[in-house]
């Protein structure tokens, strides 16, 4: 039984990553209807940005602040120069563009940095673990859960409960009307995209000390994150967060009972959810 508690907690930690990543994707995918395949590459960019900052002498806390800003700015540039031209077309064009960008980022980084990855040392404040009796919980992983919950709740609050969020939700439902009210809709969309990308980069910085900072780190995780967003329901921020944590736990339990299936269980769940509730668990039919 004790081993099970440990697995549940580990599942929760993974779920925290999934939640943070799917939050950014839910904002972009759910609200703006942009299929952002670059999300995984932007997560990787965040991690690499943190590593590069470390080479310049700026530590973890600086990276937490600067990396999302830098990568978010890159996201804004991508949106302004490339994505905004595709809004009038079928969503699939956005998919193709972002997928191509992801491959380019990955290829360039693999070329310069190799695939084995770079080491990112855990910041000293986080070394050591809490002895919970049934397992050792590394301090850093506890911080990940905490930070993830804070970021997710804060984002949900801004989008669902503030005026700014209300404008954003209105702008995605009916842009022409909202623009008629004098709100600069294109700029809002650009900044929202940048914000979603910054969230991905933040997840990347948090991942850097525990996973190898490698060019493929995004490709491995992006498919799972898309599945999480689909299960949670498009357009639902809370859905993405809750599904992220829940699926982390489901995956953790699978790793305990039948590890060979652990990389596919999320997709099995996605298939079932799509059959039963096509709009996702918390989504609204469009």
């Amino acid at each position, binding site marked *: 039984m004790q081993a099970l508690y440990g697995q549940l907690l580990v599942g929760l930690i993974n779920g925290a990553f999934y939640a943070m990543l799917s939050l950014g994707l839910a904002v972009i995918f759910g609200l703006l209807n942009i299929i952002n395949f670059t999300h995984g590459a932007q997560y990787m960019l965040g991690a690499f940005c943190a590593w590069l900052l470390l080479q310049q002498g700026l530590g973890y806390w600086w990276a937490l602040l600067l990396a999302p800003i830098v990568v978010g700015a890159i996201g804004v540039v991508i949106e302004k120069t490339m994505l905004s031209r595709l809004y009038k077309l079928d969503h699939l064009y956005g998919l193709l563009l972002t997928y191509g960008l992801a491959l380019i980022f990955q290829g360039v980084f693999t070329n310069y940095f190799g695939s*084995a990855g770079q080491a990112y040392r855990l910041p000293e404040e986080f070394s050591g673990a809490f002895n919970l009796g049934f397992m050792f919980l590394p301090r850093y992983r506890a911080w990940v859960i905490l930070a993830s919950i804070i970021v997710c709740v804060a984002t949900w609050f801004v989008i669902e409960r503030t005026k700014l969020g209300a404008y954003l939700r209105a702008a995605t439902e009916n842009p022409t009307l909202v623009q008629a009210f004098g709100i600069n809709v294109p700029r809002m969309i650009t900044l929202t995209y940048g914000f979603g990308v910054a969230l991905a980069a933040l997840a990347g910085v948090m991942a850097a000390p525990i996973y190898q900072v490698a060019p493929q780190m995004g490709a491995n995780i992006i498919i799972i994150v898309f599945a999480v967003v689909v299960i949670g329901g498009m357009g639902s921020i809370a859905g993405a967060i809750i599904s992220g944590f829940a699926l982390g736990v489901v995956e953790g339990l699978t790793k305990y009972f039948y590890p060979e299936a652990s990389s596919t269980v999320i997709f099995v769940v996605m298939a079932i959810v799509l059959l039963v509730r096509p709009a996702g668990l918390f989504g609204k039919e469009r």
Partner: protein
Amino acid sequence: MKGWTGKLVALGIAAALGTAAAQAQISDNVIKIGVLSDMSSLYTDLAGAGSVVAAKMAVEDSGIEKRGYKVEVISADHQNKPDVGSAIARQWYDTEKVDVIVDTPNSGVALAVNQITKDKGKAFLVSGAATSDLTGKACTPNTIHWTYDTWMLANGTGGAIVKTGGDTWFFITADYAFGQALERDTAAVVTKNGGKVVGGVKVPLNNQDFSSFLLQAQSSKAKIIGLANAGGDTTNSIKQAAEFGIVKGGQNLAGLLVFLTDVHALGLPTAQGLIFTETFYWDMNDQTRAFAKRFAERDKGIHPTMVHAGVYSAVLHYLKAVEALKSDDGTKVVAKMKEMPTDDPLFGKGSVRADGRKIHPAYLVEVKKPSESKGEWDLYKIRATIPADQAFRPMADGGCPLAKQQLFVTTVLGRDLADFCAIVTDELREWSVSAADAPFARWGSTSMCAE
């Protein structure tokens, strides 16, 4: 008179064609070498583009092009998928007229290409893949397993650790051909030396997060956690084990397959003290250091792993055999490579056995402490040398039919192999029986008696 001139001309043409045919047995006049590797995923750094560099260096160092032969080196990415690797191998052999495939990290892909190479009668020189089945039940007359294998790793690393007190093991295994072979071979060594395997877990390939599996390893209370995985999987396992206080809790990690590039990626503070087995290290002697310097200049400063060294050594020996035979027919060249002893600046003197296993010494290495290292790639100290005759599985134990045949002929019949083959083929000819129908067909038609 007319009849005679005609016959003379015909004879002349036949003679000319005959001699021409005897010399121009290099198919399409080009020796085409295909480097099939992982160019984009978790095994890229230990093999990948570096293997292509190593192959090209071998071609240049052999000097074969100065003696009138044309050699071409091409490469492709098998993406760690057996179906992709098989499709590339087929296309290379059928359409692009490739004569030999080298490298192939990923045992699943290697086993698939192994079978295809045998069907097409070409040659396959494996440096990157690990499964000992390539010289065991899956052995063919067309494949040579060059650099290392799971048995050597199990025996070297596993044996050394059990003898120093690590007698209970828990395995974290990459769930495909390689991981399963490595776990099987290491478990056998552990039990043979009086140890016990208390548990294990199979993990999908290219997994990012090992926390759940490390927790299970911790609760098993095994003294040693054996990592039957490689590349990115191993580095992630080791990094995360440090986080979860595995070593502080009294358990030790056994990296069963670790490469120079993995240690470099982990960094000495995390990797220090790791003990494992390799068959090549760039800093062993002046010749290996000279090679490493040239290699690093061509591969972005990366120093060669044993996989890269193996590709170099294998291609060098292959070209020697092709030149000696004046032919690039796969089955015949492989047989010639088994006949000729090997000698190169990286592995020294060695040989290739009947079952396709290349023999050379193995080295038990330990990762240096940060204070002991004087350079970016100064990462190992050599703890022990395992002599060549003890490093690899005895031929009789592998279950390879080629080995059985040769052992039967030489030990039971007491005959010299060449005599035996001559007798068999004469008999078949006398009875006008096709090789496939004769009761002794298997003996005459394997490369043991390559004709």
